[in-house]
C-alpha cells in the first residue's frame, strides 16, 4: 500500500525538478535569441547577460540597443497616419517617424528599428517587461502612468482630445444628444474611463460595447451595433479617412477630454528618456528655426544663429551630452524633416488640422521646445 504512493510522490517531485531546472534555462535563452534575429551584425559579446541589459534599472537601455543593433519600438496595431503598414508592408506614419528619429540619433540609420504592434491592453506590459525599448503609440500622458506604472514621457508630440463619431444619417448635432446611445469603445484606454466620467458629469446614460481589437471595434460601429464610436479625435479622423465613404460619418464638435499623446520609456533610465525627449524638442525647434529636410545642410553651413549651429552640431557638443553623434539632428532632419514636415506628410492626408499642434508662435499653437544650450 505504501510503496506505490511513495513512487507517485517521487515521480511528481522528479517532474517538478526537471521543470525547475528547465525554467531558468529558458528564461536565459530567450533574450539572447531575440536581439540576434533582426540584426546579424549585432555584437555577440553582451548577449551573455542580456536580461539584465534589456531591463536593467540604470543607464543601460542605450547600450543594450547599441549592442543589439536595433531599436525595438512599440507601435499601434494599425492606425492610418500614426502607424500602419503601407501597401508594401513597411510601417509608416507619424509615430513610426518618431521611432525612426530615435534610431537615426543612435545609429544614423532609419531602418534599424523593429516595430512591435501592441494593443491598448498589452502596450504597458510590453514596455515594463523590456519587450520594447520605447512606445510611440498614441499614449496619453497621465499622472498615474508617469508614477505608479513606472514610465517617463518624452514630451507631447500630439495634443489630442476625445471625441465621438456618428453616422450622418443619425442626424446628431452634439454629444449631449447621445443620451441612451450605445457607444463602441476600446478597453484598457483612458478613453473608456473618460466616457464613463463624462456621462456621469453630463447625467446621461451611455451603454458601452467594449471590444479589444481596434478593427473589430470599428467593424461593430460600422455594422450598427453601436450608435457612436469614441476615441481620440485624431484616431476618429484616421478611422473616418479609411472608410469606403468618409462623408457618411461625422465627428461631433464636442471634445470631452485632454489627451496629450507622446512617446514614453521605462522609469530608471534617464539617459534614454533624455534622448527621446530631446529628439522631439529638436524636431519642433527645427520647424521654429525654419530648418527643413531640403535646407538642413545649407543651414548648418551658413546660418548665423548660434542656437541653430548648436542644434545642428556645429558647435557646443550637445549630441555628446546626450550620448549620441553631434550630427544627430542633421541626420534626423535630412531623412525625416522637421515636426511640421512630419505632420504634413502623415497627418494632413487623413484630414487633421494643425490646431493646437501648431508652433507656439502661431495663435492657438502649443508646440514649444526649450532652448538648445
Amino acid at each position, binding site marked *: 500500500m505504501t510503496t506505490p504512493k511513495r513512487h507517485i510522490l517521487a515521480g511528481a517531485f522528479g517532474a517538478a525538478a526537471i521543470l525547475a531546472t528547465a525554467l531558468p534555462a529558458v528564461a536565459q535563452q530567450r533574450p539572447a535569441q531575440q536581439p540576434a534575429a533582426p540584426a546579424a551584425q549585432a555584437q555577440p559579446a553582451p548577449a551573455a547577460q542580456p536580461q539584465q541589459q534589456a531591463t536593467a534599472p540604470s543607464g543601460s537601455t542605450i547600450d543594450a540597443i547599441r549592442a543589439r543593433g536595433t531599436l525595438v519600438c512599440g507601435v499601434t496595431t494599425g492606425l492610418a497616419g500614426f502607424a500602419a503598414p503601407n501597401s508594401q508592408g513597411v510601417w509608416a506614419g507619424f509615430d513610426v517617424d518618431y521611432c525612426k528619429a530615435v534610431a537615426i540619433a543612435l545609429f544614423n540609420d532609419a531602418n534599424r528599428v523593429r516595430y512591435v504592434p501592441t494593443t491598448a491592453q498589452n502596450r504597458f506590459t510590453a514596455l*515594463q517587461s523590456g519587450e520594447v525599448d520605447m512606445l510611440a503609440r498614441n499614449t496619453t500622458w497621465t499622472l*498615474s*502612468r508617469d508614477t505608479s506604472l*513606472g514610465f517617463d514621457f518624452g514630451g507631447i508630440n500630439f495634443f489630442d482630445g476625445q471625441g465621438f463619431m456618428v453616422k450622418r444619417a443619425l442626424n446628431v448635432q452634439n454629444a449631449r444628444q447621445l*443620451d441612451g446611445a450605445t457607444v463602441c469603445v476600446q478597453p484598457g484606454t483612458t478613453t473608456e*474611463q473618460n466616457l464613463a466620467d463624462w456621462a456621469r458629469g453630463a447625467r446621461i446614460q451611455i451603454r458601452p460595447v467594449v471590444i*479589444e*481589437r481596434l478593427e473589430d471595434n470599428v467593424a461593430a460601429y460600422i455594422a450598427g451595433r453601436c450608435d457612436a464610436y469614441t476615441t481620440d479625435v485624431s484616431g476618429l479622423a484616421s478611422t473616418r479617412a479609411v472608410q469606403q465613404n468618409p462623408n457618411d460619418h461625422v465627428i461631433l464638435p464636442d471634445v470631452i477630454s485632454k489627451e496629450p499623446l507622446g512617446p514614453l520609456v521605462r522609469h530608471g533610465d534617464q539617459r534614454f528618456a533624455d534622448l527621446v525627449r530631446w529628439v522631439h524638442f529638436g524636431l519642433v525647434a527645427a520647424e521654429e528655426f525654419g530648418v527643413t529636410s531640403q535646407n538642413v545642410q545649407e543651414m548648418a553651413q551658413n546660418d548665423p544663429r548660434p542656437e541653430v549651429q548648436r542644434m545642428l552640431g556645429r558647435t557646443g557638443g550637445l549630441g555628446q551630452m546626450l550620448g549620441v553623434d553631434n550630427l544627430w539632428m542633421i541626420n534626423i532632419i535630412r531623412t525625416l524633416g522637421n515636426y511640421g514636415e512630419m505632420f504634413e506628410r502623415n497627418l494632413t492626408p487623413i484630414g487633421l488640422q494643425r490646431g493646437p499642434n501648431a508652433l507656439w508662435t502661431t495663435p492657438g499653437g502649443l508646440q514649444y521646445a526649450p532652448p538648445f544650450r
Partner: protein
Amino acid sequence: MSDVPADPRYARQAPRRPLRLSWSDERVRNIVWQALVVGGVLAVFYWLYRNTSYNLEVRRIATGFGFLEREAGLPIAESLIEYDPSMTYFRALLVGVLNTLKVAIVGIVLATILGTLLGIARLSRNWLLARIAGAYVELVRDLPLLLQLLFWYALLQALPGPRQALNPVEGVFLSNRGLKLPFFRWEDAHSWAMIAFVLGVVGTFLYRRWARARQMQDGQPRAVWPIGAALMGALPLAVWWALGAPFQPDIPFLRGFNFQGGLTVSPEFFALLLGLTLYTAGFIAEIVRAGILAVNQGQWEAAQALGLPRGRVMSLVVLPQALRVIIPPMTSQFLNITKNSSLAVAIGYQDIVSIANTTLNQTGQAIEGIAIIMLVYLTISLSISLFMNWYNARIALVER
C-alpha cells in the same frame, strides 16, 4: 479497492526495519532525493519572487491590492448586480466574475442537453438523423472556437437596426442591439418568492428521498408530484401573494437610440453562449456516444427481453450505466466551457478577463491583475471538479 482485505494475512504490516544512515538504505536515498527536489522547487519560487519584487521596486511600479478599494470608473454594459462606474474595482471585478459564471453555467446546461441529444441521435436507427448528427459533430469540432465566436457575432450584427427591429410577437424585438423580451418590474416580493422556490426544490428532493426509503420498508409507492407541486409552485405563489402580489409589466419600447425597459439578451452574450454551446456540444455528443456504446450489448438484449420499448431501454437501462463512462470526460468539457469563456474579450462580452485586463491597464498592476484572473478560474474549475468527482463517486459501480 476496499480497505479491508478479505484475507487477514494481508492485513499484517511488514516488520519495520531500523533506519540506517547509509546511502545503501533505500529510505535514506528517497528522503535525500525528495528533500533536494523540494528544496530546488522552493528555491526557484523564491528566486522568481525576489526577482519580481526587485524589478518592481527598481521601476517604482506600485504593488499590492490597495487598488481594489479605489473607484473603478470603467463602464460595464451588462451586470447581474447593481453597478455604476463610481463603484470600486472590487465591485467591477465581482461583476466580471458573475458574468463569467453566468455564461459558463448556462453554457454547461445547454451544451449538456444538446450534446446528449446529438450523441443519442448519432446512434439512431434513422439513417438521416444519424448522418446529420455525425456531420454536425465533425463540422463543429474541426473549426477553431474563436472563429466560430466571431462568425456568430458578425451574424448577429447583420440583424436590422433598432428602428427596423424584427417584431415576431408583440413586445419581443430582435435587432442588432440584441433580443428584447417583455418582463415585469423586479421587486423584493419576487426575490422572496425565488428563495421560497429554491427551498421548495430542496424540500421536494428531501421528501423524495424519504418516500423512497419508506417504500423500501413497507413496499408502498408514494407519489412525489403533489408534494412537489405544493412546495415548488404553491409556496412561492403564496409568499408572493402575502407580500402584496406586485406585478407591473415592463414591456420594451423604442425611445431615442435604443429600446428601453424589458429584458435584454445582448448580442455579445448571445454570440458567446451560442459559440460555446454549439462547439462543446459536439464534443459532449461524442462522449455520450462512446458511453452508450460502452454498455454491453447483452444489457440491451436483456432489457428488450423484458419487453421494454427501445426508448425506455435507453433511459432506464443503458444511460444509467453509460453515465459511469460519460462523467469523467464530461468534467473536462465543463472545465473547457468555463475556460473558453475567456475568449469573450474578442467579441466584447465583459467577463472577468475583460474587466481584469482593463483594471490592470488602468492601475498598471499587471501581476495582481493576472493573479486575480488565475485565482478566479482556479476556484471555479476546482469547484466544478470537486462537484463532478463527488457525483462520479456516487454513481460509480460499487464493487463488493
